[in-house]
């Protein structure tokens, strides 16, 4: 339970989303047709699931830019496991295991070996991507068994399942991050790792844990994405890491760690994910999508810096007055 005054960043992102939705509602009510909303939810579900993991990583004061490549590895793995005639639950388990292992490797290098996360994950981004290219030679995984697409359900059920799982994960992680001791440890490590160590928390363990979870969630995202199609491309997920980071930052998390919520990330992902479609409905050239997304990210970062300066100035003036 957090009091609302700490959530002004999340609230401003939500306000921006509300303005967008109200604008669209006035100009093009057909945007809110059930089919369109479901498409939006299904298309953005994989990014959202990855952004949940990215929130954990950023809260702990780290960054992971290898998740796009991990996503590709997991997607191809899902296809290959399915082709080897494993039942779908086992395919899912295998993919989650592979993702967790890749994340845990990042976590070990950052947490235990103490390498900077930007460098470790940059190396992993290149390594996994090229290892995959070498293995698949750029080919798609095709001729998948019939029960692969939509996990053997009907398309409608499959779509609701994908959106539902993503939202359930978001809700679960949001709650756990606020109310489980391990979640609070992530905040503490991101806020001040030395102070956390003095309080008896092991920053290396927490760091390892968030990277491993990031890997698990990336694998889940890859699985949820792969089952929407009847074939798996060998180059999936390029640029997804940036989308996930953008959703977290727009959702009000501090890039330096210690501040942010999953609820904010959901809002950030919704805002960035609906702009493209909303522009189409408003009759604006969709080429503006990227420019507007960039502007939103800049605005989020600028307001973060401005807020910090304002708080700093306020603190100094009250401190001075107390003398």
């Amino acid at each position: 339970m957090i009091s609302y005054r700490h959530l002004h960043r999340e609230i401003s992102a939500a306000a921006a989303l509300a303005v967008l939705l109200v604008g669209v509602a006035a100009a093009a009510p057909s945007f809110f047709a059930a089919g369109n909303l479901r498409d939006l939810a299904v298309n953005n579900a994989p990014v959202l699931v990855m952004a949940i993991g990215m929130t954990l990583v950023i809260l702990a004061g780290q960054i992971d830019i290898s998740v796009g490549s991990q996503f590709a590895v997991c997607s191809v793995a899902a296809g290959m496991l399915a082709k080897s005639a494993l039942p779908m639950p086992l395919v899912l388990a295998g993919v989650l295991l592979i993702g967790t292992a890749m994340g845990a490797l990042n976590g070990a290098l950052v947490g235990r070996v103490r390498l900077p996360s930007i460098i470790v994950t940059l190396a992993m981004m290149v390594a996994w991507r090229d290892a995959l290219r070498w293995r698949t030679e750029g080919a798609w995984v095709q001729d998948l068994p019939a029960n692969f697409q939509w996990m053997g359900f009907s398309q409608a059920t499959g779509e609701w399942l994908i959106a539902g799982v993503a939202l359930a994960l978001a809700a679960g992680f949001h709650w756990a991050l606020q109310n489980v001791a391990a979640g609070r440890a992530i905040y503490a490590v991101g806020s001040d790792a030395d102070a956390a160590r003095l309080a008896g928390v092991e920053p290396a363990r927490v760091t390892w844990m968030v990277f491993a979870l990031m890997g698990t969630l990336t694998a889940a995202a890859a699985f949820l994405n792969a089952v929407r199609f009847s074939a798996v491309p060998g180059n999936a997920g390029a640029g997804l890491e940036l989308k996930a980071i953008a959703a977290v930052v727009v959702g009000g998390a501090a890039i330096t760690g210690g501040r942010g919520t999953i609820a904010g990330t959901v809002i950030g992902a919704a805002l960035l994910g609906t702009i493209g479609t909303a522009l189409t409905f408003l009759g604006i050239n969709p080429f503006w999508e990227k420019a507007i997304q960039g502007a939103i990210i800049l605005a989020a970062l600028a307001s973060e810096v401005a807020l910090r300066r304002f708080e700093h100035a306020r603190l100094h003036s009250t401190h001075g007055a107390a003398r």
Partner: protein
Amino acid sequence: MVIPNRKKSKRRPLNPTDYFTAIHYDDGPAAAGAMADSLLEARDIHKSYDGAHALRGASFELRAGEIHALIGENGAGKSTLIKVFTGAVRAEAGELRFAGRRLIHNTPAIAKSLGIAAIYQQPSLFPELTVAENICFAMEGKGMWSRVDWRARQRRAAELLARVGAAIDVNAEAASLSMAQQQLVEIARALGADAKVLILDEPTASLSEQDAQSLFRVIRGLRQRGAGVIYISHRLEELAAIADRVTVLRDGSTIETRAMPDVRREDLVRLMVGRELAAIFPKREVPMGEPALELRRLRCEVSGVHDVSLSVRAGEILGLAGLVGAGRTELAHIIFGLTPADGGEIRLRGKPVRIARPADAVAGGIAYLPEDRKRHGVVPELAVSANISLASLPSLSRLARFNFQREREMALAFVQRLAIKAPSVFSPASALSGGNQQKVALSRWLATHPAVLILDEPTQGIDVGSKAEIHALMGELAARGVAILMISSELPEILGMSDRIAVMAAGTIAAVLGRGEATQENVLSLALGHLPRTTAGAAPGSIA
């Protein structure tokens, strides 16, 4: 006896009680029972950082139900000893005992589970988290996967803050609190940890009189309940009021432990200094010129410096003495434009100047050799030559062309003049010893031909040979008419090198002493001062 290194394969114990097993304790032949009321004991502790001894043979004994003061000059080793107790640093040699039993190794987690809590000078709260969470963090002791009870946390935090006598909103973010409030939150947290040993490092430095009094009440309450309190403070008057015993550290060793009622202030000051004036300082008598740097009622709110009036004449070495936190480095930062003054006047060679940025100071002929050599003195990756030329690049360039030939000649000249030991002027500064790095940093400023040279702890942590060379160079510069302001925590250096000595305390100048009238005792006594405490709302106190 040497504390052995931790074995690699040892598993982390699962709960606090496991720390009491033989893994961590080694009951030697004369173990428990010998000192029934000894709570925490350190025997002959040694610790060095990069070859510089912080502790050499420090011993300390804390009994249950006592408030034990720990005092010493700057750099006497108080902070390091505390860190050994809290497990933040590992002693190289020596023995640690808790409740009479020998502790083989210590980490922050073990110290915490034993009930050792420390409050450092700089609050170590999580700035983004609420007060309630900061107080209760990791204290429920229910494990990583347990649920956090926010209502219980808020209740507990409010209750603990009430015991400290602080009216602070438990839902406020820690970052939004003042220093004093943060200090009170830390104290509440230590109370919540139910500390058996509470260590306070200068806890009242930022507290108002009223807050300090409620802190004393809390501490006395802890003593009543059988806890031990280690209390570090420079306010000797305060110690007399609250402490039962006092231990004096000097140069990393324990000098003496006495019962507080038996000692007088003068005895404590004598025990704290007592250092031999063995080194011979090459102080030369030189004719002095006009005042080169004058400060008139200089003030800066942010750094807590106020009413500083001083003057340094050409050819004069003015020593600036004082305790850490008295505002000496802060004053240097004001003069050099790093934290510009918000009141008062700076005059250079008689003319008032405005210094808003370091560039203004450099243009006015001021050079500043900072305290933290590794972080602000030299650029470790750059070559010796590039380090030396860094402050005089414009004079080495014509239009867009940089004269590498002249840079090299300049660097070679300084390497010879200051006897800098470097493989070549092209080797990176990081390849040099500390003393030689300091000479490189000094060369950079000499290359600008400064009229005023500010040296902040110029010989701290460097070898004896380089130290003597830097002292000789200071004498030479003074003879050439440079005005030198030297900040130093080493009293013999201050007394040996200075023409006059200004003593700072609590952000202002307590007194200026002539070379003849200064002694280690009276300089330290002035530095300790009657440290006035700022009461909320009152004007900054002045020292008579």
